[in-house]
């Protein structure tokens, strides 16, 4: 009889920090201590605290172990599982709590930690709780009950009404009301209609959809079937990038299980409704996350966008009426059907209902995945849930929406995060990537990074995007190398607006956003680059110089040894009190890698 469950995170973050070997070690040790009949090992989806992975939770106690290594496993099995003594040194605690309240590990509740207490997990409710490879565990958590309810108790119109009334908006970044999208598609007559799930998550730093598919794939399958019923579609596609192998495998496994159980296929719940689902692998082109390009790609063509109208609701996939939603949008649907529109719309702000999942990255203590009600301030997300900025640095800005988004400067940290607030400050919600930057980040360099990305990913179909983004990047290059002028800043702005207005699809229309947002909030940094020829954050290599303070240099030669460009040589000068001659840097040879600074123990090398 099983008396304890050991949950090991099998999300991408923890997998890369070694949770698979951990699982093996647990299996071996549990067997060695003769506990195989009493303890069950479960691989789950993401718990969210990726920075502290691999994560292991042991129930019924709910003990949360972080940064567990294979060497710790024997101790956990022997001490905790066999003898009931919690391994204190591995228990996760809030940093501050460590000093003030020394609660015994057995009394710690996960939901009391700063990381979890402001979160509201609806989309991620099963992530880190169930085994995504086991359909029965999903069913135990009310899985497929929403599909059953929709098919047996509700008309398609009623389903659409509930989704509309809930106020759910597209979580891929656009924020289009989901119910309206369904309602636009439903009345269109055709021999075949489609439901498409957009799982082509491509923003740098975003991993929300990936984690949902890895942690709770059945929620998406169930939602797509509900959507199919509501709009009269019998065939669905999930377009997911091939770079997400864990997500693809688990989703395929989940689809197979659902088919075996008759939850996909013909005559589901004897309602006469048929629904079939297929995965389409994307090759990783960013533009395929754009809805029309995605459909063109499913059709077997090169992933290029097409002009709208006609909209997908009228002429979508294979020219048939199609509803396309993002993974996170779908993952909300079963809960809305089960709990009702009012329950959902009671959360969030006036025009943005429910919750939003964010992938926290960059200069933040708790890199990971969080879900918060709409309307929570950026301050709460970064400083409370995210644990603040590491190394005592100052928060400078948060980047949202990836290459299509903007940034929120420190002065607006109290902004309540929802669709409309972010748009009103010239930013956007985006799909949920949230990259935190501190004083060491250069905003011009950040804009350049995203432009490099869009230049690479522009499909080339329309000129404003293909050529325009390239020219933008050239201007940014010029500025970061110290060759820019004030006129370049004006040209930059003008070109941005031109690209925005004239590009064919969302990729080009939003590509200038990182430049425009940084120009809006950090224009002084651009000016410092072109007028004063300095990079205030010390990032842009063309604008920084390394030099050795000859009075401080003791002549140990560590820097010269580290230098990959042979730019550091010994001088004849011996500083007073030192025995060896100082070194100097030949700036014409210097590649500005910073290896000399990293090696110097005497703070003799400065970066200006």
């Amino acid at each position, binding site marked *: *009889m*099983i*008396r*304890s*469950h050991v*949950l090991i995170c099998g999300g991408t973050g923890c997998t890369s920090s070694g949770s698979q070997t951990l699982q093996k070690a647990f299996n071996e040790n549990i067997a060695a201590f003769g506990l195989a009949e*009493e303890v069950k090992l479960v691989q789950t989806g993401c718990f969210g605290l990726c920075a502290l992975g691999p994560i292991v939770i042991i*129930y*019924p*106690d*709910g003990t949360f172990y972080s940064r567990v290594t294979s060497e710790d496993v024997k101790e956990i099995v022997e001490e905790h599982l*066999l*003898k*009931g*003594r919690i391994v204190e040194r591995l228990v996760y605690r809030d940093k501050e709590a460590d000093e003030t309240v020394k609660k015994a590990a057995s009394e710690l*509740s996960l939901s009391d930690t700063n990381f979890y207490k402001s979160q509201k997990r609806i989309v991620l409710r099963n992530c880190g*709780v*169930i085994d995504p490879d086991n359909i*029965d*565990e999903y*069913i*135990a*958590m*009310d899985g*497929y*009950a929403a599909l*059953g309810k929709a098919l*047996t108790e509700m008309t398609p119109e009623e389903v659409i009404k509930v989704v509309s009334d809930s106020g759910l908006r597209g979580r891929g970044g656009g924020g289009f009301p989901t119910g309206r999208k369904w309602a636009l598609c439903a009345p269109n007559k055709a021999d075949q209609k489609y439901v498409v799930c957009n799982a082509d998550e491509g923003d740098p730093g975003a991993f929300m959809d990936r984690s949902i598919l890895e942690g709770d794939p059945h929620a998406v399958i169930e939602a797509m079937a509900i959507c199919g019923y509501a709009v009269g579609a019998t065939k669905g596609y999930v377009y997911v990038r091939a770079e997400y192998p864990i997500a693809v495998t688990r989703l395929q496994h989940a689809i197979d299980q659902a088919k075996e*159980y*008759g*939850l996909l296929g013909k005559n589901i*719940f*004897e309602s006469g409704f048929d629904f079939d689902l297929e995965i389409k692998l994307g090759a990783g082109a960013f533009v395929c996350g754009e809805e029309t390009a995605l459909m063109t790609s499913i059709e077997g063509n090169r992933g290029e966008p097409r002009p709208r109208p006609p909209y997908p609701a009228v002429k979508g996939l294979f020219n048939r009426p199609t509803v396309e939603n993002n993974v996170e949008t779908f993952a909300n649907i079963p809960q809305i059907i089960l709990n009702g529109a009012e329950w959902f719309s009671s959360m969030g702000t006036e025009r943005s209902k429910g919750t939003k999942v964010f992938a926290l990255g960059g200069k933040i203590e708790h890199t990971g995945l969080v879900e918060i009600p709409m309307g929570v301030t950026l301050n709460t997300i970064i400083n409370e849930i995210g644990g603040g900025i590491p190394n005592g640095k100052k928060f400078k800005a948060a980047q949202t929406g990836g290459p299509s988004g903007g940034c929120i400067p420190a002065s607006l940290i109290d902004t309540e995060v929802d669709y409309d607030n972010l748009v009103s400050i010239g930013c956007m919600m985006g799909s949920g990537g949230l990259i935190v930057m501190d004083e060491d980040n250069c905003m011009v360099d950040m804009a350049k990074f995203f432009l490099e990305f869009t230049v690479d990913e522009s499909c080339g179909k329309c000129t404003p995007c293909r050529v325009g983004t390239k020219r933008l990047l050239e201007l940014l290059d010029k500025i970061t190398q110290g060759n820019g002028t004030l006129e370049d800043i004006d040209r930059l702005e003008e070109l941005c607006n031109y690209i925005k207005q004239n590009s064919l699809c969302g990729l080009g229309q939003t590509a200038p956003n990182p430049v425009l947002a940084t120009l809006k909030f950090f224009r002084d940094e651009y000016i410092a680059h072109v007028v004063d020829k300095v990079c205030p954050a010390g990032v842009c290599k063309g604008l920084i110089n390394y030099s050795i303070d000859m009075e401080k240099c003791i002549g140990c030669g560590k820097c010269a040894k580290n230098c990959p460009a042979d730019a550091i040589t010994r001088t004849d000068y011996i500083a007073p009190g030192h025995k060896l001659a100082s070194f100097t840097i030949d700036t014409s040879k210097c590649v500005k890698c910073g290896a000399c600074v990293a090696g110097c123990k005497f703070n003799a090398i400065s970066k200006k």
Partner: protein
Amino acid sequence: MKSLAELQAIKDRMKSKIVLREGTGEIRVVVGMATCGIAAGARPVLNAFVEEINAANLYEKVTVSQTGCIGFCQLEPIVEVFEAGKEKITYIKMTPDKVKEVVEKHLKGGNVVTEYTVAGAN
């Protein structure tokens, strides 16, 4: 699967298996599992609790966990029962047979089996 009833059946069957992950129930049964406890036979006692509680369908109400040495090694296996708002009950020198009785009378019926407690033994 063709009906909602079948779906419900799977849910009911799985609920008992997954309920462990919902945190602790109203009653917490803690078995002393230090070296002294194990030597005195705490493992079969622990397993008996898990089995009897499931058999009696008390799994949502009662959580079974272990603890280290309670300090009264000669009285092991020791089992403590915690219930919010009530005094802690400590059973001593437990055996799988006694467990059956404790589950039936105490956990299900609400009547402490005094003869097996520390107080009762004195």
